[in-house]
């Protein structure tokens, strides 16, 4: 019957839209920017754009799993700053780049462990827990650095931020690897499926034999780890550990996830969502910079985009239902 085939094609359209709709919107924005914004479609600008979104790309990977499990991690920005400072201080102290990096990453894992333990084992709300560790990590960064940027003396470390592989800067390579790994984890492993199940219905997941506490612990440790990784890379790019960097960056990561279509209620997430979210946010910011829009106005624009995206998402779901 024609009506059923129509319904079927409508169903598959909404499926495709759900998975790739935001990527499509990114493509439109990107093409428009190329056509209408001077200096947008240049190699230099593309590299700059790539570097700008590499940070949010990495951090959003960890955040994706938190949101998918119905939790949230507000401590990521502080971990970025603190891990950068720790890396800088340890490199200067030991004159060893690798020890410094390990120390920075270790800091991220430690914060993640604390978050995970308090949230999973002690059953404290993740919003409150990570709000607390966010301030603790920020404060530790200031204490360790004495409130000032810590210049790094070993120049090999800076290669992490500037080295190219076939013309692609290392931070972008790291981001691509991260997204590939997390995409695989989310859709092809029990870890990812269990994360989604917990976000969908935590009690039912527990009664289905999923070790909810352990899964949540891992989610927060991983989120701490990737944030620290972003922090180390940022320190390399800035040639110093800066305790005041990335304030409010957790909101960028959450915005990117939500913009892409990750549900804050948990249970609904795809890696394509954060790719789209990160690319859209990054491209618009880049375009605004090229157009010389004031930073104050940029805040307004970013907020509006997020608001429109979530309203659009809600409306779309209603439209499909009726």
């Amino acid at each position: 019957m024609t009506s059923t085939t129509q319904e079927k094609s409508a169903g598959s359209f909404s499926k495709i839209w759900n998975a790739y709709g935001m990527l499509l919107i990114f493509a439109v924005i990107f093409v428009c920017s190329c056509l209408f914004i001077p200096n947008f479609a240049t190699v230099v600008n593309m590299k700059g754009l790539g570097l700008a979104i590499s940070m949010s790309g990495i951090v959003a990977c960890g955040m994706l799993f938190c949101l998918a499990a119905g939790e949230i991690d507000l401590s990521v920005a502080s971990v970025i700053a603190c891990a950068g400072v720790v890396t800088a201080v340890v490199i200067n102290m030991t004159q060893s780049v690798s020890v410094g990096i390990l120390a920075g990453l270790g800091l991220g894992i430690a914060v993640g462990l604390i978050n995970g333990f308090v949230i999973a084992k002690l059953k404290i709300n993740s919003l409150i827990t990570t709000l607390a560790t966010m301030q603790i990590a920020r404060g530790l960064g200031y204490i360790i650095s004495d409130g000032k940027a810590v210049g790094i003396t070993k120049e090999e470390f800076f290669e992490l931020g500037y080295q190219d592989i076939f013309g692609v800067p290392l931070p972008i390579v790291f981001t691509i690897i991260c997204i590939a790994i997390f995409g695989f984890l989310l859709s092809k492993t029990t870890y990812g499926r269990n994360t989604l199940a917990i976000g969908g219905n935590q009690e039912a997941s527990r009664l289905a034999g999923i070790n909810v506490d352990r899964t949540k612990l891992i989610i927060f440790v991983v989120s701490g780890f990737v944030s620290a990784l972003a922090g180390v890379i940022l320190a390399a790019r800035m040639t110093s550990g800066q305790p005041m960097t990335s304030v409010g960056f957790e909101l960028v990561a959450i915005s990117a996830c939500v913009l892409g279509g990750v549900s804050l209620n948990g249970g609904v997430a795809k890696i394509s969502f954060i790719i789209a979210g990160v690319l859209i946010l990054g491209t618009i910011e880049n375009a605004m910079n090229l157009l010389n829009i004031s930073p104050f106005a940029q805040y307004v624009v970013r907020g509006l985009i997020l608001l429109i995206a979530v309203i659009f998402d809600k409306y779309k779901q209603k439209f499909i239902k009726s």
Partner: protein
Amino acid sequence: MQVPYLEFDNVSKSFPGVKALQNVSFKCYEGKVHALMGENGAGKSTLLKILSGNYLPTEGKLSVGGRQLVFRNTKEALLAGVAIIYQELNIVPEMTVAENLCLGQLPHSFGIVNKAELIERTQKYLDKLDLNISPDTPLKELSIGQWQMIEIAKALSRGAKIIAFDEPTSSLSAPEIEKLFSVINELRDEGKVILYVSHRMEEIFRISDEITVLKDGQFVETFSDLSKITNDDLVRSMVGRNLGDIYHYRPREVGDTRLKITHLSGQKLKGDFSLTVRAGEVLGLFGLVGAGRSELLKVIFGADPSVSGTIELDGKTISVRSPKEAIEQGIVLCPEDRKKEGIIPTATVGENINISARRSHNFLKFIINEKWEKKNAEQQRQQMNVKTPSIQQLIVNLSGGNQQKAILGRWLSEDIKVLLLDEPTRGIDVGAKSEIYDLIFKLADQKLAIIVVSSDLPEVIGVSDRIMVMRSHQITGVIERADATEEKVLKLAMVESKAA
């Protein structure tokens, strides 16, 4: 001739891919209880949602009190005097009786709640329903039956003329059901139009004046004279065939003791429980709400921590500290509340089936084996007769019976020894019920030890080899199948046993 107050006129509702209702027409009169029956997926819930303004019908009209209309939202339905008492009650447990009753219509002056008027208004309706509850009591301190009464009071306080009940007795105790029925009878005598949706035959015959049967979204027939029809007529009308004995019980050989529990108690399980279930035996666990049946199953399954006692499986003492440990040793539980504890609503049917058993089929313990997943989900879907367009469908889009079958499929993907079923057929239609009973017996033939918890007396007696009765966290008796009668079981469940 009496004029119908509420009329459904050729009402249809389609969703993408599904026709939930097709040209349904029937009439309800003032001062009559009109029962709505049909299997799960027959369209009863859709019909109620159209009546309450949650759904807009694709075609057709309602007429209320002679006016043709369609409710575009729930507010319009409320204004027209429609109130629905849902299975899942819309209450705020932290708030008081009075606040819940007047929710959305709190009497106030300039935004400040007028407490005296609030209490007075509430008391009026509590008195009307003969409820001995203080308006100041927080709802969380009351029972589900009392919550329901508050919902009815709320409906009355809003001047409802049409009151629809959706499976109102599914979690009530026997005295609460009596209370509900007397209230419904009063409302009928006052000339309200009552719609009553239920799966329980005895209730339907006791309470209703007319019965309309739906099947697969279509109107089948309306029975106006109930004295002329029997249980069997109704079942035949609902399923289109005569089911006869829906249990198909046959005696089977039982083996050695499979599950043995000694002096078990838990944090939420107050008593001290000892019981044995043999391989191939079905143990029925009957008790009224609050008897501690679900709590007992949860402790055996490791979902609630045990405080004392031992669990033995095939003669060996085992440790069960989490559902994961229970499942790994072959003990599984189908929980009572499918929506809260059973399904993962955001996941597909296939995902819901594979979620547990996949752990023994993964590559390197954590990489999904897609081929096995697909094969297993398809196999369970066929074996359990889960009605779904595909295993890729989200499980929330299935009817309750099919969700339950999917969850059973989840456990049949495992190598299980003990199956714990908590209200396995609650809110499920006759056809799916019969399939689940058949499955229980098939699994018993395969030497599983099975415990079935149920508040449905005929069901407990129909499926069990032995019936254990509980009351306020104590075992009050064990009855063999041959000796079991409804009276005996109910007596053990209700009456205070006097110390001799």
